[in-house]
């Protein structure tokens, strides 16, 4: 009876932190005493009982086995309810679901992270993973674009990354304000100046659909192979296990076959981006 695919396990909210006006970081701990193992890029179905369930990507490092960190933007019923939770509240989770980034294939390669807006949330898990295993990878470049300075996420962590000599990081905002001293303009502008070794580079791209279109053009100019461009897609999901049909893109299910896809795979799917 207890192996219903819809049955969540209970997790406790350990801490919450307001990152921006729209985003909150919450840290969970599952009640059952066991390690929570996952691959960077996997997601969970998060339940607020009485409100519903929503797919949320895991934002914390897979090396942190004790807690699960999620960066949640307030956009719907479930995420608004999550924003109201305080430490000590209980929620339900199912997962980890999906496959995650192909970390084994990426070993020995240079990595180019391209995060647009909330796309930094799943990429942060992968970035923390590769920083922990820094020697397994060649050059690491992080590009991050936000709409305006107020929407930049994980600012403290970005400062730490900036200080590291073994990674390059570049940040831009679409609409700077008076206090912004960094770069402005769309994220695609950060790509042309990069010195990349195309066949030895993986581009890990997560952002809104409109960003994918233009970033892909730039990456093609840089001659990054289509198999080496990995994108993570967002869809609404009701089951997370390949049944409900909501996340289906042509013949593939984002929950079962993704949420990460290579451009080589996506370019044949007309409904993808």
């Amino acid at each position, binding site marked *: 009876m207890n192996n219903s695919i819809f049955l969540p396990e209970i997790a406790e909210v350990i801490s919450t932190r307001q990152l921006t006006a729209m985003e909150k970081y919450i840290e969970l701990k599952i009640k059952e005493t066991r390690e929570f193992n996952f691959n960077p890029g996997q997601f969970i179905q998060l339940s607020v009982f009485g409100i519903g369930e929503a797919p949320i990507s895991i934002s914390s490092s897979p090396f942190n086995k004790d807690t699960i960190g999620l960066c949640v933007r307030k956009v719907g019923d479930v995420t608004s309810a999550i924003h109201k939770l305080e430490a000590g509240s209980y929620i339900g989770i199912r997962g980890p679901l999906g496959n995650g980034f192909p970390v084994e294939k990426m070993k020995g390669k240079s990595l180019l992270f391209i995060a647009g807006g909330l796309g930094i949330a799943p990429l942060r898990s992968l970035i923390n993973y590769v920083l922990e295993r820094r020697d397994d990878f060649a050059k690491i470049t992080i590009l991050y674009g936000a709409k305006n300075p107020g929407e930049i996420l994980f600012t403290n962590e970005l400062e730490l990354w900036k200080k590291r000599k073994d990674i390059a990081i570049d940040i831009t905002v679409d609409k700077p304000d008076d206090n912004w001293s960094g770069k402005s303009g769309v994220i695609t502008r950060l790509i042309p100046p990069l010195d990349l070794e195309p066949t030895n580079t993986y581009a890990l791209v997560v952002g809104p659909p409109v960003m994918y279109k233009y970033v892909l053009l730039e990456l093609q100019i840089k001659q990054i192979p289509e198999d080496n461009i990995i994108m993570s897609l967002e869809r609404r999901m009701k089951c997370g296990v390949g049944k*409900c049909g909501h996340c289906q893109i042509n013949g593939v299910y984002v929950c079962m076959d993704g949420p990460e896809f290579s451009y080589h795979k996506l370019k044949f799917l007309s409904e993808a981006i």
Partner: protein
Amino acid sequence: MNDILIFKEYIGTFCNNLKEAFTVYGVKQKEEGFYVFDEIDEFSDPLKDYKPTILPPKKYLFPQQETLLRFDTQPYPDIKPVIESWKQILFGVRPCDIHGISLLDKIFTTDHEDKNYTQKRAETIIIGIDCLEPCYEHAHCASVGCLNVDDGYDIMMTDLGDSFYTSVKTLQGEEIIRKYSEYTEACKEDRERFLRLKNERENKFENKIKTDVSNLPLFFKNADNDPVWDELNDRCLGCGRCNIVCPTCYCFDVYDCMDLNMTSGERCREWDACTLKDFAVVATGENFRSTRGQRLRHRFNRKFNYLMTKYNASFCVGCGRCTRSCPVNIDVVETVNAVIKNNRNREDE
């Protein structure tokens, strides 16, 4: 068990006997020309001539609404899965609907087993009734290989006039026949008569789709930009009726319902429809299938390409319910044939 004959005067008793141990669902005429599966009170059912029921019998395995979890949030969350099932018999199921159920079996057991379905399925006995004549103008079962059915039922009955020639497929089927039915062994003449009828029917069922069904995935792979979707875009109302009446549609929505105390409640699922406007909307508001044409294209691809490629079987079973129920007369056979024709025309160019 060898094939048997159940004489028609005993069918009523058989059905009534079954009711003692099972909930029995059979076919009833709801109003002139419209049939439904419903719980049988007394056996007087139009097994012979019924047109496909308004809704297929999948509703007894995958109900329109179903509770998945029951939860209490106070003082500490207590969540229990809810899987409801009981011993049930589906009586008088046609080959197309048996195919429909077999396809759902694949869906709900592959990758992650869906116990809410499989537990109901395990407690279900299917008594089929074979078709000797096309049931109505929209049927195209023969075109999609669903007239003949070799699996997915426990008992299959064929109308010989005064009796039903009955083949028993499973041990469960044998058990209920022995326990609840009056029957006689079928003799050589009965078998010959049965085979002759089966043989004669072959010519009566027209192959309406203008290619072998196995070619359809390829035709649909090449039809993403087919003009037929533009034409249907202007006709389709996006009402979702074709999804709701389909024996192989299984998309669903999940939602929570709180009790009045606001501390306990249920998580439920409900049939959803990929032709509805909001089906592929994401949290940020983008709709990845924003037009009716795109959504119909998706639905047709699920039947004849995506799922067909994955499971190597047509996910249209040819019952014609979608055509019958479409308020603007979008015809599944016409649409498939238009895709085939346009493909061939493009090849000729």
